[in-house]
């Protein structure tokens, strides 16, 4: 049995670690809200929050207090059970995802041998909560938003899973900590640039971050499944969103960027390991916010087509190429070259889809003639 850091029985040990995670998650989520507003403000050429506390640092605290003090409404027509349990089903799976996150060498809640499979399985459960929230609210906007969320999540689940598989093929394990330790010389992004790009895009979609925020698009479905939620119940969704942003950035930095070992090896002290994780995760979070500030929202046909016609085939090709190179023991730089070629192909296809939306135009004409007849 792996001995716990606190040397206690597994129940108590797990409980203490989870309570630490609760504190960490709350602080990080509040910090992320502040940072996102501040960084977005800079991108928009304004200052962002600045009135509450020094540099506006207490903005999230003020928001939280306001949300706790707000009335918790439930519409008369809403289905009580699905409406009440929506927030639970969104939040609990996200929280369960923390169990396998590698922050440092000896501090994750538990090292699971099937870590990646566990994470993928658990993180996709929260979509049930989204659909429940959308259906239970008995509101058309919420209903459409929930359906869109489900369609988007299941479509981008595939490139998400397949690119993670491509990486676990390199290390030959699904244990996230072993994947991190296997990267002590070269991080996986060097061998798998295409898988990294696909995973990053799919992670944006799984997080419902812009440009993949059509389930919650304000100008289309006025907030999607959450339109009827208010006060603390709404803030549960919000907390879950930022917690999953945190989880996802930790996961990407662990799986692709070498987590806490690269570039200094695993003999490093706990403090440096934590610092490495924090630096890598912060860079990724900044990148995600940057994408939000500069890319417009996709249309739903573009969104679904992009996942099924471009990302899934490319991810499958990546897996086959990985297998070929590894089975026949070819030199590893081939993977880098193929991956970079794949990125070039991906950007060419994306560019082409932007410049020549032929299929969309044809279907729009077909719809018009249908409406006219």
């Amino acid at each position: 049995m792996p001995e716990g850091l606190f040397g206690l029985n597994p129940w108590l040990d797990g409980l203490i670690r989870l309570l630490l995670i609760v504190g960490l998650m709350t602080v990080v989520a509040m910090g992320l809200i502040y940072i996102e507003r501040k960084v977005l403000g800079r991108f928009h050429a304004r200052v962002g929050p600045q009135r509450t506390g020094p540099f506006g640092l207490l903005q999230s605290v003020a928001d939280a207090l306001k949300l706790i003090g707000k009335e918790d409404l439930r519409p008369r027509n809403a289905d009580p059970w699905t409406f009440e349990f929506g927030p639970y089903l969104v939040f609990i799976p996200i929280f369960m995802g923390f169990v396998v996150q590698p922050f440092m060498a000896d501090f994750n809640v538990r090292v699971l041998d099937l870590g990646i499979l566990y994470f993928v399985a658990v993180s996709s459960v929260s979509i049930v909560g989204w659909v429940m929230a959308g259906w239970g609210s008995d509101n058309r906007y919420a209903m459409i938003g929930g359906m869109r969320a489900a369609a988007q999540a299941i479509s981008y689940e595939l490139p998400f899973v397949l690119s993670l598989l491509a990486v676990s093929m390199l290390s030959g394990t699904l244990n996230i900590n072993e994947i991190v330790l296997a990267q002590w010389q070269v991080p996986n992004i060097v061998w798998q640039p295409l898988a990294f790009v696909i995973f990053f895009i799919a992670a944006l979609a799984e997080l419902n971050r812009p440009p993949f925020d059509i389930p919650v698009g304000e100008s289309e479905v006025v907030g999607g499944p959450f339109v009827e939620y208010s006060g603390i119940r709404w803030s549960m969704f919000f907390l879950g969103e930022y917690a999953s942003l945190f989880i996802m950035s930790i996961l990407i930095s662990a799986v692709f960027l070498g987590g806490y070992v690269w570039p200094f090896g695993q003999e490093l002290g706990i403090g440096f390991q934590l610092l490495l994780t924090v630096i890598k995760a912060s860079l990724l979070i900044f990148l995600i916010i940057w994408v939000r500030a500069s890319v417009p929202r996709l249309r739903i046909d573009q969104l679904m087509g992009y996942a099924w016609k471009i990302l899934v085939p490319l991810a499958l090709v990546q897996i086959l190429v990985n297998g070929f190179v590894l089975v026949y023991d070819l030199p590893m730089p081939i993977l880098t070259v193929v991956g970079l070629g794949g990125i070039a192909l991906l950007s060419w296809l994306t560019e082409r889809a932007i410049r020549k939306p032929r299929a969309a135009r044809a279907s729009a004409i077909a719809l018009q003639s249908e409406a006219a007849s």
Partner: protein
Amino acid sequence: MGPAETLFSNYIPVLLATIVGFILVLSALLGARLLAPFSREREKSTTYECGMLPIQRSATNVGMRFYLYAILFVIFDVEAVFIFPWAVSFMTLGAQAYWLMVAFIAILALGLGYAWKKGALQWR
């Protein structure tokens, strides 16, 4: 300790995480119940809509296209689950297992191509 017990003790934190997450949401909701004001009004609990009352309940018709994607997703997710054990062990299984997986993925790629050609991937 036997492997079964190790497996069990590995997943204790998972069970605990479920419980702690549940308690977290529950305590937040109970806290709001204690702190937040409540006043029941008839107009306040109507469904949000742009200034008018909605005509029917919203759970009426949902586009058929969502189900197409759902079916495709089930097929490909099962495929991904099959690839998982292969991805971990293909180095020990050798070249034959690799070509079997190539055939497996090729069959599924044919299915994807068929769906593509039939226009199931086109959002209409």
